């Protein structure tokens, strides 16, 4: 089917910050005042195989809007588009390995003609020492539809908790904590994408 071989991947290295995290390229805040949906803050740390924080990683997210529609031409679904919501974010990690986003909880998007997926956010991780990026998904621990999510069914039950963000509240804001463990005990589930 393919006619051209793919270009290989190489690490983002240690010095991407000035280019990829410049003021108008990093995007922590995905929402505008008019954006539909429940405001949430996502925060977490990136950790390595020694349990040490990773201060030189970049986390990107991609998500549907509150109605379950992606702002992308390939999504021709019936759910309403929200012109104020692009759905993509990018955060570096700080010296303590922390990343964060302010966004909305996504709606459910289709899996196939019959089934919906549970609300989730696609998460991609880049860093020095990663020759390929890592792809995972953040789900919501307090979401009842997780039990019927078709993608979670592919994940061994004992590892599913690594994909569930933990709900918290702080100063009236809803926080979802999602740590990304690159290696070792509690290693986050990564997908072959």
């Amino acid at each position, binding site marked *: *089917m*393919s*006619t*051209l*071989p*793919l*270009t*290989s*991947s*190489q*690490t983002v*290295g*240690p*010095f*991407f*910050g*000035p*280019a*990829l995290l*410049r003021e*108008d*390229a990093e995007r922590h805040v995905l929402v505008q005042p008019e954006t539909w949906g429940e405001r949430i803050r996502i925060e977490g740390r990136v950790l390595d*195989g020694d349990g040490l924080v*990773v201060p030189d990683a970049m986390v*990107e997210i*991609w998500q*549907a809007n509150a109605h379950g529609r*992606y702002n*992308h031409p*390939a999504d*021709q*679904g019936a759910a309403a588009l929200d012109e104020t919501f*692009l759905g*993509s974010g990018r955060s570096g990690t700080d010296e303590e390995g922390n990343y964060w986003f302010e966004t909305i909880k996504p709606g459910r*998007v*289709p*899996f*196939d003609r019959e*089934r919906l997926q549970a609300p989730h956010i*696609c998460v*991609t991780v880049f860093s020095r*020492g*990663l*020759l*390929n*990026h890592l792809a995972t998904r953040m789900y919501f621990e307090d979401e009842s539809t997780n039990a019927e999510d*078709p*993608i979670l069914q*592919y*994940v061994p039950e004992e*590892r599913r908790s690594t994909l569930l963000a933990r709900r918290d509240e702080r100063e009236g804001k809803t926080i979802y904590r999602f740590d990304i463990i*690159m*290696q*070792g005990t509690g*290693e986050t*589930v*990564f*997908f*072959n*994408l």
Partner: protein
Amino acid sequence: MKNITIGDIVRGDQEIFPPYLYEAYQSTRRRAPMIPLINVPLTLSELTGPGPAISAITPEDADLTRNAGPGGEAIGQRIIVTGRVLDDLGNPVPNTLLEVWQANAAGRYLHKRDQWPGPLDPNFLGMGRCLTNEEGVYRFLTIRPGAYPWKNHPNAWRPSHIHFSVFGPAMVSRLVTQMYFPDDPLHALDPIMNAVPTENARKRLIAAYDHAVTEPEWALGYRWDIVVRGAYATPFELKEGGR
């Protein structure tokens, strides 16, 4: 950790993509996942992806020789780097964001963690970006980066390279990689480049000198095409009943 062997965990095509763990590149040892990646069907979530979300891209962003500010020009061999972004069916990928970064002509990055005694160039930031045009063509004007020393192993030097970040049409297309220059004796010594498993795949990371791109009395030309995964399936082609 048990029986760690190089090449155990690979993303996608094993002929093309490096393993996550490649011991010669030391930083992989504590950052590579140890549990195999999970294969899942592609869904709407992976067959869509960020668009060219940075709105204010200007032509000046693609000129790394002058984008450090008014007046000055970066020192070094001026080069044009151009090529096409294609999907693996050969279709051009139009209007997609490319971000690049590189060391200066002396091999020094403008970054607080880069402290080796190579000189900084006040007229070189080492970063640029552009969108591909309708034919998938990108073009940067820059200077040829120098080789760069690092602490991976004794007397380690990275070959001259330019980092590229590419989005492409969907999440499955996302690619961060590095472009190298032809005939560099450091290629054979570089664990990052040699983590790519096959010679053919390594060769495709090396730009070609192209005299047709070279401009007289101005700049040398290099051509480098980037091939990303296409978003083949549409939601309507997803199998009924999924798995």
